[in-house]
C-alpha cells in the first residue's frame, strides 16, 4: 500500500457518493466508496442485491441515467478525473479504454446484426480502421477467446450461437481495443455452471495476457474467490470491507462478511453435519438506512456506539480495510448463532419408510412442428423434443430427492410431468400407489391435494391482487381440509411456522420482500398438508442470506410434517446440503442417481465429475480438479446416439477403440452400493479409480 507505484492506478475511486433524484427528494444509492485497481489486477465486488454494486460500475462510465449523478468524491481513470466528463470525450472512452461486460449476453448483442458487423464496429468507430482489417482483428480476437470456427461465427446472428459463446463474443468485443479497464457486471450469472467455469478460466487467462485491470461485480462468493486478487464487500451502498481474496475468506473481519460466508453451504457439506446461518433481517432500502452503522440492525455484535456513530473505513495490519468499530474484538470462530436464526436440528431418518413415489421408465416428448412445406401440410416426418427419457427412481417418505443438471436438461419437465401440468408420453409413475401419468384435470381432488409445488420466482409466485391470508386460505377452502371457521386460525398457524407472524395476514404481495414472498409460497404449498412437495429452484432467485433462511425453513417443515420433497436446483452445493438422494440429469436422461454423499465422491459419472469440477468454491485455497467440457449441449430433438453424453465425455478414451461403444449402444446401469447407480459404459472399477474432485477444503470458517 505504501509502496509508490510508478504509474497511477488504472482506476481510483475516492469517497464516491452516487445519488438518484426521485420524486420528493433524492436517494444516495452509494456512499463513500473508495478503492483502486492496478494493472493486471482483478478487483471483485460482492454483496447482496440492492447494495449498490452495479451503481458503482455505472458511475465509472457515467451511465447513471437521467436522474443519477455522482454527488461527491472523485473517480480517476489513469490519473484523469472522470466525474463530469460528458459528450464526445465520454463516448471516446466508453468501449475504447473502458469496456463493459454485462450479465445477459443476449441483451448485450443486437439480435438483428451479424456478430462480425457489431464487433468490427468497435474498431471502425474508435480506431478508424478499414472494414477488412477490422474483421481480421475480430477473427483473431475470437480465436483468442477460444471460439471454435471463429471466421464462421462472424457471419452468424446472436441467436445462432449458444449463451456461453455469446458471452465470449461480448468479452472479445470488449477486448478489441485493448482497454485499460474492464468492468464486468455479473458476466457469468446467467450461464450454466460448466459454461461459467470456462468463461472464468478465460477471464483469468486474459487478465494475465493483456494485463488489463478488471472490476468484477458478482453476488457469488465462489466466483469471486476464483477470479479476484482483491475483494471489496459492499453493503447498503457502502464498502464495509476490502482485502486480498485470501484474507477475506480466511480471516473475514466485518460481521457482514462473516455472515455472508456462514450462510453459503460448502460443497460437500450436508444437513446432518453442518448448518447454515442466515443473516437476520434484510438489506435496508436506500431511502431508509439506519443511523450509525448501516449493518447495525442485523449485526450480532451491535453496541450503543454502533447506533450513534458511523464507523469509518480503518486499515488493519494485514492491509485490509474494515468499516467497523469493533473489528479487532470480533473473532469469527467464537460466534454463536442467536436464538432467532437458530436452524433446525436434523434427526436421523427412519430408514424403513414406505416408498411414496415410484417412477418407472417415464418419458416426456414434445412434438415439434417444422417450418418446411411438408411439415405444414402434415406430411413431414414427426419430430419430438425428448425432454425426459427413461426416468426411473423411487422416493421413500420424508426424504428429499435433489435433481441437478444444466438448463435444458429436463429437470423442470420432469416435475411438471409428475404434478400433471404436462401429460406423460409413456412409462409409469405411481404416487401413494395411484397412477399419476395423466394430466391434472383428470386427477382426483384428493390426489391433487397431496401433490403441491413451490415455484422459483418470488415475484410471480403470489397473485398481486390478493392478500397473504387469502392466498394461503385458498387451498384450504378448495380441498376442504379445514372447516370454514377455522381457516383463519390455521392460516395464522402456518404463517407462524413460516416465521412471518399474524400481522402478515392482511398484507399484499407488493409489501413483502423476495424472501417473505417465497415463505408465503411455501406456506401455500403446505396449506393442504401434501405428502409430496415439488420445489422448482425455490432459492435460486434469492440472495444468499435469505437463501439460507429458506433452506432452513424447508428443513424444519420437512421435519415437522414428514413431507417428501423433490428439490430442483442448479447449485450443486445447495443440493448436496439439502438432499438425501441426488439425481444428475443430462439431456433428459438421468446419468447418475444415489445417496447424496455417494454422488459427490468417487465413483463418479464422468458428467457429474465435470459438473463438480466446474462449481466455483467460496474458498480460494481449495484445490479442484480441472475438467472442462467441450462444445455445447446437443439439441434434444436429435440427441446423440448411444450414450447422450458421448459427444462431450472427457473419459471416453478410457474405453477400447476410443469409446466406440459409447456412440453406438445405450450404456448399462452400473450398480454401486447403497442404491447408487451410474449410467455409463465404463465399469465401476474404472470409475472408482477417479480422484475426488475437491481436495483440501478448509474446515469451518
Amino acid at each position: 500500500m505504501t509502496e509508490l507505484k510508478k504509474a497511477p492506478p488504472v482506476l481510483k475511486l475516492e469517497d464516491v457518493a452516487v445519488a438518484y433524484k426521485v420524486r420528493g427528494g433524492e436517494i444516495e444509492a452509494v456512499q463513500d466508496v473508495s478503492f483502486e485497481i492496478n494493472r493486471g489486477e482483478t478487483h471483485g465486488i460482492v454483496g447482496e442485491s440492492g447494495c449498490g454494486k452495479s451503481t458503482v460500475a455505472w458511475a465509472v462510465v457515467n451511465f447513471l441515467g437521467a436522474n443519477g449523478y455522482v454527488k461527491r468524491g472523485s473517480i480517476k481513470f489513469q490519473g484523469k478525473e472522470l466525474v463530469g466528463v460528458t459528450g464526445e470525450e465520454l463516448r471516446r472512452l466508453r468501449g475504447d479504454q473502458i469496456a463493459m461486460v454485462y450479465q445477459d449476453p443476449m441483451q448485450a448483442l443486437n439480435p438483428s446484426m451479424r456478430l462480425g458487423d457489431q464487433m468490427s464496429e468497435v474498431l471502425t468507430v474508435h480506431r478508424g480502421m478499414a472494414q477488412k482489417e477490422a474483421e481480421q482483428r475480430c477473427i483473431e480476437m475470437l480465436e483468442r477467446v477460444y471460439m471454435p470456427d471463429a471466421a464462421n461465427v462472424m457471419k452468424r446472428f446472436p441467436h445462432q450461437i449458444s449463451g456461453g459463446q455469446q458471452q465470449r463474443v461480448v468479452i472479445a468485443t470488449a477486448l478489441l481495443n485493448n482497454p485499460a479497464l474492464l468492468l464486468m457486471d455479473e458476466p457469468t450469472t446467467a450461464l450454466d455452471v460448466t459454461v461459467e467455469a470456462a468463461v472464468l478460466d478465460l477471464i483469468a487467462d486474459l487478465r494475465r495476457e493483456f494485463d488489463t485491470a478488471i472490476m468484477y461485480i458478482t453476488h457469488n462468493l465462489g466466483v469471486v474467490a476464483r477470479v479476484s486478487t482483491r475483494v471489496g464487500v459492499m453493503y447498503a451502498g457502502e464498502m464495509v470491507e476490502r482485502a486480498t481474496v485470501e484474507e477475506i475468506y480466511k480471516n473475514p473481519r466485518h460481521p457482514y462478511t462473516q455472515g455472508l460466508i456462514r450462510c453459503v453451504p460448502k460443497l460437500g457439506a450436508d444437513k446432518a453435519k453442518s448448518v447454515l446461518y442466515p443473516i437476520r433481517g434484510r438489506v435496508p432500502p436506500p431511502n431508509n438506512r439506519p443511523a450509525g452503522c448501516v449493518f447495525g440492525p442485523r449485526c450480532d455484535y451491535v453496541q450503543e456506539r454502533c447506533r450513534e456513530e458511523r464507523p469509518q473505513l480503518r486499515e488493519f495490519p494485514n492491509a485490509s480495510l474494515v468499516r467497523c468499530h469493533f473489528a479487532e474484538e470480533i473473532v469469527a470462530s467464537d460466534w454463536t448463532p442467536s436464538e432467532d436464526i437458530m436452524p433446525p436440528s436434523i434427526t436421523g431418518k427412519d430408514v424403513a419408510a414406505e416408498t411414496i413415489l415410484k417412477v418407472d421408465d417415464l418419458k416426456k416428448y414434445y412434438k415439434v412442428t417444422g417450418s418446411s412445406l411438408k411439415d405444414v401440410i402434415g406430411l413431414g416426418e414427426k419430430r419430438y423434443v425428448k425432454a425426459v427419457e427413461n426416468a426411473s427412481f423411487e422416493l421413500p417418505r420424508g426424504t428429499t430427492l435433489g435433481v441437478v443438471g444444466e438448463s435444458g436438461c429436463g429437470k423442470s419437465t420432469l416435475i411438471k410431468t409428475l404434478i400433471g401440468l404436462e401429460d406423460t408420453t409413456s412409462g409409469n409413475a405411481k404416487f401413494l400407489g395411484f397412477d399419476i401419468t395423466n394430466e391434472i384435470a383428470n386427477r382426483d381432488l384428493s390426489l391433487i391435494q397431496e401433490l403441491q409445488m413451490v415455484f422459483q420466482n418470488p415475484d410471480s409466485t403470489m397473485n398481486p391482487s390478493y392478500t397473504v391470508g387469502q392466498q394461503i386460505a385458498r387451498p384450504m377452502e378448495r380441498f376442504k381440509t379445514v372447516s370454514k371457521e377455522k381457516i383463519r386460525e390455521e392460516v395464522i398457524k402456518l404463517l407462524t411456522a413460516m416465521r412471518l407472524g399474524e400481522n402478515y395476514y392482511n398484507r399484499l404481495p407488493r409489501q413483502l420482500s423476495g424472501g417473505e414472498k417465497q415463505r408465503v409460497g411455501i406456506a401455500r404449498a403446505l396449506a393442504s398438508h401434501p405428502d409430496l412437495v415439488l420445489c422448482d429452484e425455490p432459492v435460486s432467485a434469492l440472495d444468499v442470506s435469505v437463501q439460507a433462511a429458506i433452506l432452513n425453513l424447508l428443513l424444519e417443515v420437512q421435519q415437522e410434517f414428514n413431507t417428501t420433497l423433490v428439490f430442483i436446483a442448479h447449485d450443486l452445493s445447495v443440493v448436496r446440503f439439502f438432499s438425501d438422494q441426488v439425481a444428475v440429469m443430462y439431456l433428459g436422461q438421468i446419468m447418475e442417481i444415489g445417496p447424496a454423499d455417494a454422488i459427490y465422491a468417487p465413483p463418479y459419472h464422468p458428467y457429474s465429475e465435470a459438473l463438480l469440477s466446474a462449481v466455483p468454491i467460496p474458498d480460494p485455497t481449495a484445490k479442484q480438479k480441472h475438467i472442462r467440457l467441450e462444445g455445447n449441449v446437443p439439441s434434444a430433438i436429435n440427441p446423440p446416439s448411444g450414450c447422450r453424453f458421448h459427444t462431450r465425455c472427457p473419459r471416453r478414451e478410457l474405453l477400447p477403440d476410443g469409446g466406440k461403444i459409447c456412440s453406438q449402444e445405450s450404456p448399462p446401469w452400473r450398480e454401486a452400493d447403497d442404491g447408487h447407480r451410474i449410467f455409463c459404459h465404463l465399469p465401476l472399477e474404472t470409475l472408482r479409480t477417479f480422484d475426488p474432485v475437491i481436495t483440501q477444503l478448509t474446515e469451518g470458517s
Partner: protein
Amino acid sequence: MAVKTITKSASGPSRLQTFWDSISIIFDSRVATVGMIMVFFWVILAFVSLFWTPYDPNASDFIQNLGPSAENWLGTDHLGRDILSRLMQGTQVILLKTRLPGDAGISIPGGVAIWGVLGSLSLGTLLGLNAGYRGGWWDQIIMQVLDALIAFPRIVLYLVVIAALGQGDLVVILAITITGAPGVARLVRSLAMDIKTRDYIRAAETRGENVWFIMFREILPNARGPLLVDGMLRVGYAIFAIGTLGFLGIGLPPPDPDWGNMVNEARRNIFSNQLAVIWPALAISTLVIGLNLFADGLREELTRYQK
C-alpha cells in the same frame, strides 16, 4: 364511471386506507387532476339537472335564436328553448339514466354511455380471457370473428344495428357494446397471455382449479388497471358515438335533449346563430377531453407505480 368503480372496491373499513392511497395517485398527475375536474363538472351538472334546470328544457318559452343574455345565459335555440337547460338535461341520458322502451317512461340509473361501455367491457373481457388463457382453437375462432367485426367501418355497424332494431336507448347501448367489445377483447387477450405465464397461475393449476376460476379470479383482477383506463377512454368514445348518431338523427330518441341532435338542429341556422352549434359541441368535447386526460394521467401514474 371512475367514481363508480372505485367506490365499489372500497368495501370494508380495512380497505379505506388502500382506497385513499389508490385515488391519491390521481393528484400526483396534473393531467389527471385537470381531467377529473372537467369530468366532475359535468357529473355535478348532471345531478343538479335531475332536480333543477333554469327553465323547462322542452318548452318553447322564448324568442327563437336569442344570443346570450342575463335571462338565457347561453341563448335560445331555433324553437325558442333555453340552451343551458337543454345542455344540462342532455347530460342525463349520457351519464345518469337509460330510458326503457314502452310508454311508462321508466328509466334505470346509469347513462347510455356508461352502460354501453360496461357492456363492451363485459363482453370483451369474457371473449378476451377465453382467447388469451385457453389459446389454441378458442383463440383462433374468437379472434377471427372479432377481427371480421373490426374490419367493418364503425359507423356502418352502428347503422346496421339501429336499422335492424329501431331507435331507442337500449339499441344505442347494444351498438356501443358490439363495436367496443373487439377492442376490449384484444386488450384483455394480450394481458391474459402475459399473466398466464406467471407462477401463481401454475399454482392455481396445480390446485386443480376450474378454468373459469383461473380466468376471472386469478387473471382478471391483475388486468384491472389497464382495463379501468381503457374503460374510461371508451366512455369518451361512446359519448362521441352518441353525438355522431344524434347528429345523424338516429341517436337517442326525443323528447329528452341530446347533444348530437342539438348540434344537428342548430346547424340549419348556423349563419344566424352560431353559438347554438358551438355550445353543445363544446359540451361534447370538454367531457370527452376531460375523460381522455383523466385516463391518460391515470395510466401514466399506474405504470409508474408498477414494479
